[in-house]
């Protein structure tokens, strides 16, 4: 049954977490620990951070993230289509041409609008 496989995945997940945490724990045990104020300061060329660290970023990042989500959602449709294509006919290809055509033209629009240019 399917769920069996996912029990393995779950175990693997736990194993990966353990695999990542174990060395850190070991390092805690065997590594030297000498705390000092200077040492724990953020590494910005030896000068303390000026102003706020968590600055506000430009909207460009957000537009890219948004386009990423749009195209990621598009794959949500592409995967089932590709998986089921064998039992469908050529019409499925045509439907996908229409679907992708719209999205591609959306991309072309964004391109022509200049938002794809990273400055």
């Amino acid at each position, binding site marked *: 049954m399917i769920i069996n496989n996912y029990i393995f995945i779950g175990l693997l997940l736990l194993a990966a977490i353990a695999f990542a945490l174990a060395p850190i724990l070991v390092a805690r045990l065997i590594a030297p620990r000498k705390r000092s104020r200077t040492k724990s300061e953020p590494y910005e060329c030896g000068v303390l951070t000026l102003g706020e660290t968590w600055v506000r970023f430009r909207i460009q990042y957000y537009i890219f993230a948004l386009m990423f989500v749009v195209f990621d959602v598009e794959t949500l449709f592409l995967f089932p289509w590709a998986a089921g294509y064998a039992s469908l006919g050529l019409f499925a290809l045509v439907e996908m041409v229409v679907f992708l055509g719209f999205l591609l033209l959306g991309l072309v*629009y964004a391109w*022509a609008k200049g938002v794809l240019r990273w400055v």
Partner: protein
Amino acid sequence: MPTVGPSTLDFRDFFFVAPEMLLAVWGLVVLLLDLWLARRLDPAARRLWVGRVALAGTGLAFAVALAVGLVPLMARAYPEDAGSWLSKSTLDYLFDTDPSLFSGTLAGDLQVGAFDLLYIVLLGLIVGLSRAWSFTEEWGEFLALLFWATVGMMLLSAAEELITLFVALETMTICLYLATALEKTRRRSAEAGLKYFIYGSVSSALFLFGLSYVYGLTGTTHLSAIRRLLVEAQQSGLTANAAGATAVLLILAGFGFKIAAVPFHQWAPDAYEGAPAPAAAWIATGSKIASLIAFMKVFANALEPWASPDSNVLRPGWIGIVAVVAAVTMTYGNLAALRQRNFKRMLAYSSIAHGGYLLVGVIAVGLAADVSRAAGAVLFYLVVYAFANLGAFAAAAWLARDKESDQIDDLNGLGRKQPLLAICITLLMLSLIGIPPLGGFFGKLYVFMEALDERTASRGSISLVWLVGLALLNSVVSAFYYVRVLRAMFLREPAGKPMAAADRLIALPILLSTAVVVGAGLTPDLLMGVMQAAAAPMLTTPIVVHKLTAPTPVGPPAPKKPTPAFQYSADQMKKMGQMATGGAGPPGGGGPAPKAKAGTKSATPKSKAQAPASKKAENRP
């Protein structure tokens, strides 16, 4: 390899969605053309050309929609002639009285055809209105979003299945959110877009959650199948069905938002005021029509068995909830509109109030003995309301163009400067109040008469008298704020610079709306006849899509469309010409029909197409 139930796709079905496809593609054309022109032309010329192309698109879509509507009619009217230039399979397809498309996810009946045409006409007027003045830089985007919103509306009013319905609803509203926010020079526009978006997405989530409950309860998303299952389950009303009640509440929240019914109305005034007038007009008209049609389909068709248990409206059942919502909505809308000085805001509140009246109509549909008549009344109301509102928003656009404001006071003295248009606006306002003999009066009359109908009352035995009384009282209240517009136009002296003469783009919507409103008032029977014919298939078609044997996301294949085995007699041809499609078959599994409701339903369209209905029933397993 596991075999997958071979769902089939009938490519001829795409013929009936040609207008939608055309509009979708045309939106892209406009968008890309605008981009291309932006580098070559100055803004004014670009706006002109983009607008022209968009108008051409709506014209083309109108022609296509007309053709889509007429070809089957012509073929049925002249089968011999049609046979000479259409293939046998096409002919069979056109003669097929089953109006469902794409395995029953869409309806292809008269209601869809008529409203497709209506949407396209309204869209054309709104596109023209957008050209009237320059309120945004993003012309192509704005027009494309209007086009795509229209696609959403057309498919929303055609949807016979919850997934399609939801996607169409989202397409419509998302395009409208964005169009609302596109007037980027004004902060109000962005604010309006954001408010609209946040309220809208929350209510969409609730709506989808409600739909998932319905799916979980019934195992299907097809409206007619849901109805059949609920009838078979013999649970009339929501008594002892808490899950159903929750579903109803959640779905109601979704629709309530779209039509701005009261607990979900907060977005409307801000959105109407902040949005550019054409976008607001499209929210107020197209989106409202489509949402109400979908509302009626979901509630009065799919969830009809849950309408009310028996005698009492306020017993568990969605009618009771809707009745309360309707009462609160119209009262609140009218009272709040009284205080408004801003024209668009006033229109927003008045549209909330009209949503309340329309909900009374929906209740009447839920209770009515003659569903098509009751639904026809609601559709009639919707059409008249839409045109009256469109004219009002054209006036708002005029204000925005010349005065860059939306205050009612800015209309001062219009009656002297522009008497013709001022009289037209007056007529529209009177129609919105419901003064005879304008269309608005008959809209209200029909809706309220349906609510008070004797047979309805005998079925429900409670009367909706209190609701109708409240509605009438509200109509009186509404007169005060509509009259304020008239007073400004005719009794006040103009202040500041007067408004320039309206150009064709603004005058045309006003004149056409007035013509429709007056025409509907003078010959209400004509429009009412069309609307009743349209409403008949909308709520009564039993589209048997899949037999439910098990709760499964994958239904067994849809039964093939029954190829009509009968001869096309002249008589039947006439009937089919009226597109009286199918009629209600006997409710699936038999058993004692609950509370005789299904019985009355199935007997409803008895005047029409009895023969095809029985033929189809034979063909069905």
